[in-house]
């Protein structure tokens, strides 16, 4: 990504704004649900189209940049669709369309209240996610990061039960504190660099001669800032609590957009703010690796204990997010490629699983694993998709989870830390241990009270089958994502 | 040290007055007495300014044909007096407002005793 590869274009801006523009339309058509959902879907399609139109340039290693205006002296509100950003945007906007369809089925199936608010804030969340993906500097990043924090809150408390309100408070307490730390870190960086906060491949701070007593606290501030959303281990407990949200929210936001925004922020911080050299110099990569390995294993172990299906999936998410951070912490090109692949592939698989959980909740009103006996008989499509997702998360071919885990393992072995491959294998086994029993219950045990129950509506089943097929397809043909990830990694670590 | 004390006698006087005033404002329970304290406090400052203008051998700053205008040092500095004229007006206005407030407090709560007033306010719904 040399400066020559940067060209000016407003497409990133439109990609951010399109769902924001849909918000007033959604609000205005609150009395006409069909029109309202049309706006959501239209915005989703347009957004996806815009992101797709950025893809060819990104694959060539070029960057579309939209410079707006100065927000803080020396720092402009600027969007840059670099390969990394396009990668994330592609995943989020693509899955938004499917989630929107699913949401329609889910919300109508459960006759949820305040659907307008739900769809409106969902659109805001997507805008913020695009903004995070395309943010060219830390200020823009923080801007959208905080918008995402706030816009997710109404979705978390959507049910308005005391439990939901409590979860909402917890969510805000964690994320707002994180935002504060991130701001502190950004201001400090601003001071160190003398007013420059642009993300730069290889590290914004790489040229500065930081002392350890500056670099380490600064990194910890950043870690606290982006670590909450990416739910690394001591900072994770908001995520299981936030599972009281409607399932599509858990699916897209708490498996893809919000948490991946945290992970994405982590990649930005490690590769674009600090840079590999600096991290290595102060041993910060080791810190990160220790944290993530702990999170991976503990997350999986905790998932074993959960009976609530969504909470189980949440702990699984926690552990899988750390795969990606682990990949970033390995500080090598292949590892980053593997991490990015996992960012995309985990999204497809986890969203499938969440969709399935939601479909079960809608048509059977069941939320606990122990109640799932025999579900496979009445909801074959749903449980088939679930099986694909479960296989993928455990890392079995030909699902896409295998691809990313394979590369990650290879990168770990190729680097100087082969023992990490053992961690990966172990966690794969744990994944299987907490996901396969569900499949087994669903298909091989006799259930009670299932007479007359059917699949959920097509609005829900079609998206979840599609995401499952997508997981399968990407497992067989991951090339586009692979190329894009290579481009992104090449910008940082050079060709390899 | 004695020269310092004697040489700055008007400071001591002013500070004494200020202390008396503050004593009245802070420790007296009756609101009227607080206002009296305020007045003493303000007078102390007015005196401070006026005193700062005086000097030995100076006279009233009104043009005296015998002295003429050439020797300004024979007159005392008129500026602080002018300033204090304004300050007096301010203090009159402040006292006026204070008394008006006291009257309306009295009408509502029938007391000017501060602890009593606070107790009655506490029992008073908004």
């Amino acid at each position: 990504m040399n400066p020559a590869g940067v060209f000016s274009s407003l497409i990133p801006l439109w990609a951010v704004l399109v769902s924001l523009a849909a918000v007033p339309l959604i609000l205005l058509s609150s009395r006409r649900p069909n029109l309202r959902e049309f706006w959501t879907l239209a915005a989703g399609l347009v957004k996806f189209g815009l992101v797709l139109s950025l893809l060819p340039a990104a694959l060539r290693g070029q960057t579309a940049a939209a410079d707006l205006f100065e927000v803080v002296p020396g720092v402009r509100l600027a969007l840059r669709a670099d390969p990394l950003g396009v990668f994330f945007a592609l995943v989020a906007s693509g899955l938004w369309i499917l989630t929107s369809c699913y949401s329609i089925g889910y919300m109508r199936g459960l006759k949820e209240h305040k659907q307008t608010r739900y769809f409106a804030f969902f659109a805001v969340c997507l805008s913020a996610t695009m903004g995070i993906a395309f943010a060219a500097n830390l200020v823009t990043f923080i801007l959208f990061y905080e918008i995402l924090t706030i816009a997710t809150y109404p979705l978390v408390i959507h049910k308005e039960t005391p439990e939901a309100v409590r979860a909402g408070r917890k969510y805000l307490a964690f994320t707002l504190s994180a935002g504060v730390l991130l701001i502190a870190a950004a201001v400090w960086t601003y001071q160190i660099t003398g007013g420059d906060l642009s993300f730069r491949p290889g590290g914004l701070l790489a040229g500065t001669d930081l002392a350890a007593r500056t670099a380490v606290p600064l990194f910890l501030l950043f870690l606290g800032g982006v670590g909450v959303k990416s739910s690394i281990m001591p900072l994770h407990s908001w995520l299981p609590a936030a599972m009281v949200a409607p399932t599509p929210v858990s699916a897209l936001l708490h498996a893809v957009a919000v948490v991946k925004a945290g992970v994405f922020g982590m990649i930005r911080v490690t590769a674009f703010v600090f840079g590999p050299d600096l991290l290595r110099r102060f041993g910060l990569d080791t810190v990160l690796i220790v944290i993530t390995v702990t999170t991976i294993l503990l997350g999986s172990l905790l998932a074993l204990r959960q009976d609530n299906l969504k909470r189980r999936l949440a702990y699984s998410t926690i552990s899988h997010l750390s795969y990606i951070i682990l990949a970033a912490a390995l500080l090598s090109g292949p590892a980053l490629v593997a991490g990015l692949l996992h960012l995309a592939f985990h999204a497809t698989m986890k969203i499938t699983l969440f969709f399935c959980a939601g479909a079960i909740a809608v048509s059977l009103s069941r939320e606990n694993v122990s109640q799932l006996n025999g579900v496979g008989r009445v909801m074959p499509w749903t449980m088939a998709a679930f099986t694909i997702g479960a296989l993928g998360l455990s890392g079995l071919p030909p699902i896409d989870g295998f691809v990313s885990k394979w590369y990650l393992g290879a990168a770990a072995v190729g680097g100087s830390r082969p023992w990490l491959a053992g961690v990966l294998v172990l966690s794969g086994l744990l994944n299987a241990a907490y996901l396969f029993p569900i499949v087994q219950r669903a298909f091989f045990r006799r259930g009670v009270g299932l007479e007359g129950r059917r699949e959920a509506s097509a609005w829900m089943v079609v998206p979840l089958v599609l995401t499952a097929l997508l997981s399968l397809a990407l497992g067989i043909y991951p090339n586009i994502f692979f190329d894009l990830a290579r481009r992104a990694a090449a910008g940082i670590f050079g060709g390899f | 040290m004695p020269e310092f004390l004697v040489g700055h006698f008007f400071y001591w006087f002013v500070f004494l007055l200020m202390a008396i005033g503050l004593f009245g404002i802070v420790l007296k329970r009756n609101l009227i007495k607080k206002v009296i304290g305020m007045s003493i406090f303000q007078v102390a400052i007015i005196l401070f300014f006026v005193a700062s203008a005086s000097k030995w051998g100076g006279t009233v700053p009104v043009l005296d044909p015998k002295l003429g205008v050439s020797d300004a040092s024979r007159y005392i500095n008129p500026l602080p007096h002018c300033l204090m004229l304004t300050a007096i007006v301010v203090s009159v206005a402040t006292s006026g407002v204070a008394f008006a407030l006291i009257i309306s407090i009295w009408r509502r709560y029938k007391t000017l005793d501060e602890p009593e007033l606070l107790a009655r306010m506490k029992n008073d719904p908004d």
Partner: protein
Amino acid sequence: MIPTNAPALTPLLFLFTGLLIPLAAFKFRRLAYWLALSATAAASAVALSNIFRVLDGRAIHYRFGGWPPPIGIEYVLDPLSAFVTSVINVIALIVLIHARRTVEADLPQGKRVPYYALVMLMMSGFNGIVMTGDFFNLYVFLEICSLALYGLVAVGDRKSPVAAFRYLVLGMIGGCFYLLGVGFLYMSSGSLNMADLKAILLVLGPRPGVIVALAFMLLGFGLKMALFPLHGWLPDAYTYAPTATSSLMAPIGTKIGAYGLIRVLFFVFGLQFITQTVPVATVIAWLSAAAILYGSIQAMAQDEMKRMLAFSSVAQVGYIGLGIGLANAWGLVGALLHVLNHGLMKACLFLVAGNFRMKLGHSRISRLDQEARRRMPWTTAAFTLAALSMIGLPPTVGFFSKWYLAWGSIRNGSWVFLAVILVSSLLNAVYFFRVVERLYLKPADRPPEAEKSGAAARVRSEVGASMLVPTLVLAAALLVVGLLNAFIVKGVLLKILPPGLAGMNP
């Protein structure tokens, strides 16, 4: 005419209107409000245009009565005074538009005319304080606006005279301390003109008289701007005053004290004096940090919304004080930006409280619930936005004040202050989300009768346009000013900074 008289124009305009109102209202009672409003509008226009007059960095000096300084009274229009007058006049304009209905609701007929006259005198005082270049003249205007404010507070609730009396006592002490400081300064230097004094003080150096003068003046300003721990009068005064008064006082009143501090510390005594010779800047910074924490914690415990906002003002004044106390370029920029930002936020919040009082008859947090939101969706939305800004979330203005203040702290290596700023945004989040959560999530205690009859359940009783529009304008301004803050900072605020301030460059 306007360019040459620009510095004196706004104070005189308000003074004139303040005098005209009682005379005009002798015959036409309704005229009072419109006179006040048009004067404020004109003053806002003049003040805004003044900014462009001084952008080249040259101050416009205005000699009262033609007497040259330092003997005569001089008015100075420089970037600082142009900025501050613009802020206070524009906010006053917006609040006054809102005030018409609340004044009608809060005050008996006979008190409305004097009320507007007092508002004009208060504005005259504020503008005069900012424009004058003479310390004693500043005192006079300080007392003019304080006297007007005592009256404006006292016409509120049943308890308001007591609040006003307490305010009067402390305000009087503050004024007297300031005057005493001026006296010491005059005795040491023989001058009352700010520009003149600046030159003299350079020669005089830290003489005891000068230091005592500085201490007394700071004490005076501290009392008037309610800098912790001198804030005792503020919560009661804000709570019991009529809505219109508290929404004028809260965004504007405390800013004047902040202006005074900036003027005296940076433009008269100078950086060297306040940071090295007598490190008062450090004292102010620590007191402000304490104010931020104390105000935020107190605000959490309040049930009455206006009282909560009052304590939040104590905290926000602390932000401004902290920026001043940091005594570097970005701290001061943060303080100045916060003067604007806090003005907008607090005005918006107090207008919201006024709207609630108007329609619900109270502004008690414990009695707010979804019902309030259903009846007043726009007011609630404005509150939410202002709350986000108080917490300091981008892209609202609150975020950017915190940004500059945090930067100023880091520049000085003051990690404690950085921590205070960050912790306080979380505290703000606690006490504002408490309210937001109630408004959106707390089910109405008594389901409205209309709920059962379907369509009627959606009865909205939002306040009228004359109250709603100012509230929403302020809320929108929070976003717009936030996004465009770099223009304000670079275009105006950086030109205000006194020369030689550390860390001019980013």
